[in-house]
Structure formats: C-alpha cells, structure tokens
C-alpha cells in the first residue's frame, strides 16, 4: 500500500518530498530544544518552590496576629511561665491547655544527637578513607568499598528498626541505662547513615592528591605513615572539611532513625543517656495530627524551614570546599 501511494504521486510531490522531512526535523529540533531546556529549568524551579512553599507556611509565625495569640518568636526562644504557675522554663508541649512552644529542648536534642553521630562517624570514616587510599591492599579495598555502598543503600527506616530492636539492648546492657531509647542509641544509628557520605567524599579527596606529592615525600626518606599524615592529609584538608559539612547536613536532617530510636522526649539535658526529641522527628511525629493552619502547624513548618535553610548552607559550604580542593590540587601539581 505504501509503495503504491508513493509511486502514484511521485511526480507532483517531488519537491515537497525533499522539503518536508527537513522542515519536520528542524521543527522537531526546535521543539525538543525548548522542552529539554524547560525540564532542566524545572530543577531550579523545584528548589525555589520548596523554599517558597515551606517559607509561606512558616511566615505566619512572624506576621499573623492569629498565630501570635499562641506562639511568636519570643515564646519560641525565651523562657515561658509554666502552666502550674511555677518558675519560668523551656518546655515543648504543643498539645495542652496552654500550648508551649519552646524550641530549646528540641534544639539541644538535635545538637546532642547530631554531635554524637558526627563524633563517631567522622573519625571512623576519615580514617577508613585514608587507609583505603594510602595503605590498603587491594583485597581490603574490594571488601570495604562494596560494604560502604551497601551501607549507603540501607533504608534509614531499617537502620532505625535495627537500633530500636538490637542496638538499644546492647547499649543498655553495657552501660546499664534507665531508658532503652536515648540520644546515644539514636546517635550510633545516625552515624551509620553519615559514614557512607563522609567516607565517599574523603576518599575522593585523598585519591585526587597527585601521585607526585607522595613520590616526592617518599624520595626524601619519609615513611608511608609520614607521607600519609603530613603530605596527603594536609593537601586534602578542604576535601575532608567538605566531607564533614556534608555529613553534618545529612545527620541533622535524617528523620526515621531519630524518630524510632531517640525516645522522642523533649527534655533539657546534656546526658547521652536521656531521651531526646529532634527537629526532624518532631515534624514527623506531630504533623500527622496537627490542625491545618493552627499555630502548631506553622511552628512545625518553621522547624522545616530552619532544617531546609541550614542543610542548604551546609551543602553550599561542602561544595565550596570541594571546589577549593580541586583548585588547590590543580594549582599545586
């Protein structure tokens, strides 16, 4: 059928047959170019939309009279009188006769858990990364790298589950703590989520140090350890910093692990054996039951906006240090 059609109209259609596919291709090219440009632009739009929409829900905390009856910045940050008429204090008690929205217990909780996680994860991951790039026999590398990939692939809800079921018992058995779920349990779990990021970025940094640095050092009689600690490590410092910032950003935003393993009590305490409630866990635990548009709702979005801006800045700092590392090593070699 197709052949017949082409044959019958071949004479008159001749010029158009030559012209048309070319025009069509040019048109398709232009359409595709616009569509693709638009899609790429969407990534930027998405980021802006996240900022605008979360900011829009957080803003009434600063501007709305209605919300100010229950919560404003002063009440979020300064001590408030207790409902029983006792001494002024910092309490997070959003569901009560007189709701109290002091952010201090949550801030302290977030700081405590994140610090524990980072203090465990960064030394472990950086040491492992330095070892992998400088000393490790190929066999160790072939075991460790897939392990890191597996660890990075474990869903955080599984890590949270593991902490709640297993790690909590172990830690309680060793230290004899009153509460199974506490800052330490959550911190240990969180470190598992942070290790892959820190390791990957730090290892990238160490391996990008030019081989000439090492050869120079070894030629001057330094040992392998001296080379690693006094040449490779200092040269890769911006990369290690980047790893710390990105790891910290991951830790502060991680939700499921702290939600499941931290005990979720908003207590002011420095002890790692007390239960804590973090910003992210507060949002996850309370947004489901909150009244749409209430003061509590806006406070939760305020926490979300804080997390967004804070991790955004940490990410920018992390990326900036990566660029610094590249500049430094390219300039030096």
């Amino acid at each position, binding site marked *: 059928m197709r052949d017949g059609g082409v044959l019958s109209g071949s004479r008159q259609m001749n010029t158009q047959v030559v012209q048309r596919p070319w025009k069509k291709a040019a048109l398709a090219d232009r359409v595709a*170019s616009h569509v693709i440009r638009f899609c790429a632009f969407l990534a930027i739009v998405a980021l802006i939309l996240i900022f605008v929409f979360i900011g829009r829900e957080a803003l009434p905390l600063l501007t709305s009279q209605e919300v100010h009856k229950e919560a404003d910045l002063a009440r979020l940050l300064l001590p408030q009188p207790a409902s029983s008429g006792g001494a002024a204090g910092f309490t997070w008690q959003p569901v009560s006769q007189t709701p109290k929205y002091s952010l201090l217990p949550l801030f302290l909780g977030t700081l405590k858990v994140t610090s524990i996680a980072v203090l465990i994860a960064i030394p472990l991951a950086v040491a492992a990364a330095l070892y992998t790039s400088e000393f490790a026999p190929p066999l160790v590398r072939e075991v460790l790298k897939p392990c890191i990939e597996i660890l990075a692939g474990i869903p955080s*809800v599984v890590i949270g589950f593991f902490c709640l079921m297993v790690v909590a018992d172990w830690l309680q058995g060793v230290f004899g703590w009153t509460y199974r779920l506490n800052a330490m349990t959550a911190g240990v779990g969180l470190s598992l989520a942070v290790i892959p990021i820190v390791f990957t970025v730090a290892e990238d940094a160490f391996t990008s140090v030019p081989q000439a640095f090492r050869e120079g050092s070894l030629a001057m009689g330094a040992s392998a350890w001296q080379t690693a600690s006094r040449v490779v490590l200092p040269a890769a410092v911006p990369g290690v910093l980047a790893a710390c910032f990105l790891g910290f950003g991951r830790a502060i935003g991680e939700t499921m692990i702290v939600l499941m393993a931290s005990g979720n009590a908003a207590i002011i305490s420095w002890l790692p054996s007390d239960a804590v409630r973090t910003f992210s866990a507060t949002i996850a635990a309370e947004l489901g039951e909150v009244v749409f548009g209430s003061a509590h709702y806006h406070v939760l979005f305020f926490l979300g906006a804080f997390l967004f801006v804070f991790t955004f800045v940490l990410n920018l700092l992390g990326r900036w240090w990566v660029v610094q590392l590249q500049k430094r090593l390219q300039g030096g070699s």
Partner: protein
Amino acid sequence: MSKGTGIGGTFMVSMMALACAVIVAMVAIIIGNILLHGAGGISWEFLSRAPEAGMTRGGIFPAIFGTAALVILMTIAVIPLGVATAVYMHEYAPKRSRMIGLVRLAIQNLAGVPAIVFGLFGYVFFTKFVGAAIDRGLYGGELVYGQPAIVWAALTMALLTLPTVVVATEEALRAIPQSYREAAYALGATRWQMIRRVVLPQATGGILTGGILAVSRGSGEVAPVMFTGAAYFLPELPRRLHDQFMELGYHVYVMTTQSIDVEATKPVLYSTVLVLLMLTFLLNFTAIMIRSRIRRRLRHDR
C-alpha cells in the same frame, strides 16, 4: 615502615585498619542479624497475603503492591525529567555557562535537602495547593485530589530521586565519544536527531542505572510519603491515582513503633525488614554492575 616512625606510625596505621574493620563489621552485623531473624518467616504466603490479627500474622502483599505502584509512578515522572536535565547540561548548554552552573547547583542542593523537608513540601504543595486547585477546577470543590494520595507521594519521591537520575545519566553521556556526535552532525542530523538516535541509545545503561538507584531509594524512604499518601493500614489495594497506599518502609515504621504487642509482631516485622532490605540490596547491586560496565568502557575509550 621505615626510618624513625616505628611504633607510632605502625600504631596509627593499624588504628586506621581497625576503623575499616569496624565499618565492615557494622554492615555484617546488621545484615546478619536481620537475615538470622527474618529468613524463617519468608514464604509465598507471607509475600502474597494481607496483614492479619493486628499485623501479628499474615503477610505484606498490600505493602509490596503499594511500594511497586509508588515507584512505577515515580519512575514515569523522574526518568524523563532527569534525563532531559542531564541532556541539557551535557548537550545543549554552552560549557561553563551560568545556566549550567545554576542547574548543577540546584541538583546538588536538591540532593542535600532532608527527606522530611520533601515530605513537608509534598504535603503543602501537592496536596494542599495543586490537589486543592484540581478539586476546585474539576470536581467543584469535592475532596478528591486535595488530600494525601499515591500520585502526590510519587511526585514528591520523584523530586527526591531527581539528582540520582541526573548524575547517573550525565556520567553515561560523558562516556560517549565525541566522534559519535560529530559523525551524526556530518551526516546532516539536527541536534535532536543526533540526541535521539545516537546519544540516548548509547546512554541507556546510565539511564537504567539512575532509574534503578532511584527505585531503590524510593522504595525505602519513609519521611517523604508519611504525609503525602502512605496509610497505616488499608483493606483494599490502591486502584486510582488519588487512592492512599501502603508502603514497605512505612509499614516497618508502623509495626515497630505502634504495635500493640511488640513480641507478637516481631517475627513478621523482621521478615518485612528482610524483604525491604533484599529489595534495595538487589536493586543497588544491579545498578552497580551496570555502572561498573559503563565506567570500564569509559576507561577503554580514553
């Protein structure tokens, strides 16, 4: 170890080796523990039936089905968007242009946004803004799309996994020799023809890697779907775009924290975790295999 560093150096190096061992041990313990307690409960029945008796017995089929539906919808959204973004950065935008820097910055920062923030955004943007607008426009204000639903959860998840797809696709685009593109142009192809007939077929592996990694990430994340569509328990499977759904990760969370009888739930819980873990593990493994093949090709070509 030579010259004067002796004991100190040896000690430090062995400490670093110990750090490696600790990390490997942690991974081994987690997987070992879950395998040990979870493997016994996995059967065809467990995979094909709904939870029973307050989630202490029965299976997890609705959660598996919901997760699959979620990641399929997510993939439909994220692959075209992610691939187009990568193609733009690598094939369209002039090198080192301001636009390319902005897109890259946006992608990198999107990758760093906490999952819970995506959850908040999905809730307020998709359900309360887009969904409510659809309801006003098409359903006369009746509540259909203006509430948590699988389509909103999938779109939220698509945003979360966008960087994964972009990065993997870009890596694949970089592996395609420049001469292929020049050959296509020399034959008179337009840029779009070159991309569609030469670049995209060559980049299939990378796109596949990105897609699989995104699916793996999407099937395990809980925080973004908590408020955008995942449900505690549903008697029926989701059939329409605006239905709620059950998700494996959320199911684990619910059973772990809100179970009436922790000891009775434990065997089912462990088996569910094992299923989730194996699923992400297999997906990641496949993606890593494909990626390492691409990387090998990249090395050969240069």
